[in-house]
């Protein structure tokens, strides 16, 4: 759940989508600036955090990169419960992954937080020759369902930061945030306190 400490917002974000759509690749591009051609499949879910500055506020994303494997589907609520945002990822060269993305959207609409910011990412946009899902089709679908849509490429980094920034901008708490009040350090002090206490 997005929670604001003045202009610092912690936002839980979950990535959902079919096996091989590129969820992990998107996250790794966003968080670490890395890309590997043959990303191993995710087990369960991997946790990342990354902070972005939007306007005059700071959003700390707590990102859950979930596994697309079928055996983990029933466990997805564990990861998207309480999420402020979701990115539903499909592979533009794979129609089945787009169908799967629609199912995730349905599930989130039925189960998730109604204020959740949802983004639809058509990943692998560098594979133009292999395109199976037209961007107009996805755009239309996104509009009908209240998502925002971007075609991304973790490989070339196209639109990767953009999609996270766009989410950060749309987070409800941020829009409602009152006037900026002084300077705030990020989460560091809390972490230090933790570290100190365990040395005893």
């Amino acid at each position, binding site marked *: 759940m997005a929670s604001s400490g003045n202009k610092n917002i912690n936002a839980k974000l979950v990535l959902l989508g079919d*096996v091989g759509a590129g969820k*992990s690749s998107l996250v*790794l591009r966003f968080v670490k600036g890395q890309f590997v051609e043959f990303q*191993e*499949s*995710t*087990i*369960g*879910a*991997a*946790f*990342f955090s990354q902070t972005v500055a939007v306007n005059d506020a700071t959003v700390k994303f707590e990102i859950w*990169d979930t*596994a697309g*494997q*079928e*055996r*983990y589907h029933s*466990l997805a609520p*564990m990861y998207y419960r309480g999420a402020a945002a979701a990115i539903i990822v499909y592979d533009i060269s794979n129609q089945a992954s787009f169908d799967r993305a629609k199912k995730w959207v349905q599930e989130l609409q039925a189960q998730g937080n109604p204020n959740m910011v949802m983004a639809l990412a058509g990943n692998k946009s560098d594979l133009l020759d292999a395109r199976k899902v037209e961007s107009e089709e996805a755009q239309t679908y996104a509009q009908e369902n209240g998502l925002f849509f971007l075609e991304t490429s973790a490989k070339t980094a196209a639109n990767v930061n953009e999609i996270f920034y766009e989410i950060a901008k749309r987070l409800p708490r941020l829009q409602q945030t009152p006037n900026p009040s002084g300077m705030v350090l990020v989460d560091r002090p809390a*972490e230090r306190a*933790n*570290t100190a*206490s*365990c*040395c005893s």
Partner: protein
Amino acid sequence: MSSRSPTTTLDDEEEALEEEAESPVQLNAINGSFSEEIVAEGDDDFVEDQHFESNSKAESSGVNEEISYTWRNVPEIDEVERPLSPGSSGYAGEMGSTSGGDEINDDDEDNSDIREVEFDGVSGSQSQWVSGKRHADEDDASVSWRKRKKHFFILSHSGKPIYSRYGDEHKLAGFSATLQAIISFVENGGDRVNLVRAGKHQVVFLVKGPIYLVCISCTEEPYESLKGQLELLHGQMILILTKSVNRCFEKNPKFDMTSLLGGTDAVFSSLIHSFSWNPATFLHAYSCLPLACATRQAAASILQDVAGSGVLFALLMCKHKVISLVSAQKASLHPDDILLLSNFIMSSESFRTSESFSPICLPRYNPMAFLYAYVHYFDIDTYLILLTTSSDAFYHLKDCRIRIESVLLNSNVLSEVQRSLVDGGMHIEDLLVEPTSRAGAVSSHLGQPRPGVSAPGRMADGFVGGIGGPAGLWHFIYRSIYLDQYVSSEFSSPINSLRQQKRLYRAYQKLYSSMHDKGIGPHKTQFRRDENYGRSFLFYPVALRMN
């Protein structure tokens, strides 16, 4: 053949396996220096010619006590070696000395007639080795597929393929159906098929409810070993899916399980690989990374702190070796679960990218339910596993990890771990030359992981007294029944090549199996001679009981 008196080595120890290897030339010299001499010419099969019945080992039995079908008309031939040209094998020279054998790259395919198989052995690192399924293009019509020395299959009771070590499961549908037909044919007669021998091949069957597991092997491993490997393979599947997957078959007998195991080829192939180098797979014991007592205590105490707060099991591991292990309540972690869990984590690259929170099932702890595993790598080899029953515990476990990490850093545990990894385990030479300085390392190694149970440095003392010189003891494995742990020496100079190491491994495997055979009983000392490459290996399993 020569022997040293067992009493000179491992006094007061519960059970030990050791072996000695020497060339014939050295053999004579050694014969002179020891009192006993046993001639066992042409008795290569002494150990392995035992009849295989249900394994009496406590951990692995109790599941099935069926009578095995053993068609043993063909006398056992000791593992026949094909001519090896060292340069072509892909094994030569790549091996450092490590008892862990992460670098042992190929396993049962010491089969020089398939070059591409050996190509797999060239890669020096585990990450290169574990690349999921190999030879996926093959099927049962391929000549190369038929020549593989060891196949593993998992199929459903309706004959649908679930996993095959080699080849594409879907292309092997016909073959799977054949296996299923054999199993159900015997079952229809009110019986159960355990083992079929066909020439050099053994076909081992294991039925686990709606899941059938089959191994086809010409590696001359004992039936018990192969069956144990199938049990582990099944355990690995349970770890990923829990046993409740059986319900899918109740609803739909033709259920296709392959999709549920998507992305886990590397997990299974790495487990199968470990059958050929990791003694934990047949000893049902785990091994610890050698560390100074204080270092391990520092790790144990912070894990203990954490375990009080809703963590069921906390494990700090370095590769496949345990640094420290703590469990809450009275729960205990079975060594097989440790093996399967660490295999699962190490073979899944995904755990290395970040901290993870995943459902996993410990088949020996509770095969029906998922636990949740928080996994975090501190460095490339060292990782922390925190297991909990609560699916909401991630942030708590993350905090625990931060506390643990800072303690480990402040007390230099992680750097000590790295140093231990570089130093390797116990070296026979060091034991001989500097018994006192090593003795401390040995005892802290054995004494720590389970507080309250101690195994003081008797073992080291035993070596000091019993070894007649650098050529005496060449390698050993010691397994403690009380601790569920084993320790082995590093491979040292006589056992240089990967091939020799593997032969030694196989010999231990056979020995272990025969020692736990009802026909022999655990107290009997055995001798085994194994002549290959102009080298004789002598094995002394020693089972001593402490009063």
